[in-house]
């Protein structure tokens, strides 16, 4: 086994920060899929409504975890109010997380208004400022969601403690895993309604999820090729994943649960609702594990 020294005895960031990156991925994925749902789903407003609540919930838990893990919460406002160091990905990330919170809150309010209007029989949104506000909000949410999906890579690539985050394909993997988690959540939401599992939107989400899982698998394969002879620290991290302490999580959760279970589920002649939910949950677990291991492997 490769033995590599690191500047610090213990890595500065622990498992809670890895969980933070998973939750941020869930929130950003939900935002990205929510953007898609407005234009493509027949029950798009309901889907958006639930996904936005999930997003805001994930961000709340993620921020709480961060405060608990890092301590000195009274000083955290500096990360939002201090603009002198925009070189710092953490500084920019904190501001975007706050922006995402704000946008989700506004979006939920607007969706609440829209749901009330739909309940009274109004089916068309008023043109002009109302429509523009909705569109701008969703566009901004999509942008912040995209940023939050990828920004952990920018953060981790500036450190010695996560060598795999510096690898060429890591940003794409983080983006795809966020999309997998968001699509998985949306599929669960769509299928949870009575008769929802057979709906068009559920079928679309199911196909999209399988395509994203395939893309994730291909990206991991290409990443493995790219990391041959990538330096002692990167090689040590790869070895840790495939043969060391992280092998159970990698082969079991990422490859087994995250890829094999959803893809093998497609072979079933009949696909009951429970099986669809299991495949969606498995894909989410696999994508979350991938994000965690890219952060933690060293």
């Amino acid at each position, binding site marked *: 086994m490769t033995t590599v020294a690191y*500047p610090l005895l213990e890595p500065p960031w622990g498992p809670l920060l890895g969980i933070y990156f998973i939750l941020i991925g869930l929130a950003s994925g939900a935002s990205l899929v929510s953007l898609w749902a407005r234009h493509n789903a027949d029950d798009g407003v309901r889907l958006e409504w639930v996904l936005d609540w999930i997003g805001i919930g994930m961000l709340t838990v993620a921020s709480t975890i961060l405060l608990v893990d890092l301590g000195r919460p009274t000083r955290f406002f500096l990360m939002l109010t201090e603009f002198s160091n925009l070189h710092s990905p953490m500084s920019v990330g904190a501001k975007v997380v706050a922006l995402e919170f704000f946008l989700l809150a506004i979006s939920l309010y607007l969706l609440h208004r829209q749901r009330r209007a739909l309940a009274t029989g109004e089916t068309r949104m008023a043109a002009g400022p109302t429509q523009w506000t909705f569109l701008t909000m969703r566009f901004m949410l999509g942008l912040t969601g995209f940023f939050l999906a990828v920004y952990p890579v920018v953060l981790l690539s500036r450190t010695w403690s996560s060598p795999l985050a510096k690898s060429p394909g890591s940003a794409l993997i983080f983006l795809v895993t966020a999309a997998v988690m968001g699509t998985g959540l949306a599929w669960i939401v769509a299928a949870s309604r009575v008769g929802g599992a057979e709906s068009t939107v559920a079928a679309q989400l199911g196909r999209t999820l399988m395509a994203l899982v395939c893309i994730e698998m291909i990206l991991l394969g290409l990443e493995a090729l790219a990391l041959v002879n990538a330096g002692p620290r990167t090689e040590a991290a790869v070895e840790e994943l495939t043969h060391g302490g992280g092998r159970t999580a990698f082969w079991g959760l990422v490859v087994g649960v995250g890829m094999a279970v959803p893809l093998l589920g497609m072979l079933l002649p009949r696909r009951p609702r429970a099986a669809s939910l299991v495949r969606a949950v498995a894909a989410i677990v696999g994508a979350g594990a991938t994000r965690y291991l890219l952060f933690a492997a060293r």
Partner: protein
Amino acid sequence: MPGACDRHLKRSRICATPSASGGYFCIDCRRPGSRRGEYNLVAQGISAAYIRSPGITATLGLAGRTASLTLAPAELLLLFLGGWVGRTPLGERACVARFGMLIDLRTCIGCHACSVACKAEFDVPLGAFRDTVKYVEEGKYPKARRHFIPVLCNHCEDAPCLEACPTGAISRLADGQVVIEKGDCNVNRFCMSACPYGAIYVDPDENVAQKCTFCEHRTTQGLEPACVEVCPTKCRIFGDLDDPGAEIAQKANANRTEVWKEDAGTNPRVLYIDPRGALGLIGADGVQVDTRSKMPAVGP
């Protein structure tokens, strides 16, 4: 007008007064002042804190000469007004040194006097180090050799910790020391992850990130850092790297110097005279990892 060159640097003194011929000279040694590019201008009554604030870069004529200035707009206005009424001497500039340390590995005996002095100076907690000495063994008997390598924060020109800190708690002082403001640190540990030297630790008593400051509290008083002062072999030299008359600059010019982890591209201000290539032996280590090393067995 009174002044002092970089060699006779005192932070509170105004130096490098323009002479009648337009040049700069030092009141103490009559040596011409250094002509480095970017000067921070400190006018009377203007807080030195302005120096740290991001300002605009402008080119102004100063007493018949041109210097590049980095000033906030408010400062520029004050300087113009002050100069106009004769209350602010426009020709004066603050001394700005480029503090660094030169460590001669040929003379270090690994006595740890520097480590102990640093621990005592800052009450550094057990298991953490601002400054320590690595013991590294190379070769096998009968050609075995032990190296003693003092390590500390490198106060890099391109400090990764400074750019990583999201709260602005890490800043560079006018003379180049990179320091952490305790009140602004929220212990997010990004600086620790970014520093390739492992020079930053979390002080469990105060719950803030801490590191070597080049003993900024001492150097502002004209004293040397504690580790330099106690070194029995004088293997550490502290001073202004830009001052050609300073001992550190002269010794650095007379010898081939190396830096720790040059590949990290941080431009350290801690230089080593290392003819035996000992720094390469700790290329992957950090300041904080000493506690992991096993002490040799003693006794039967």
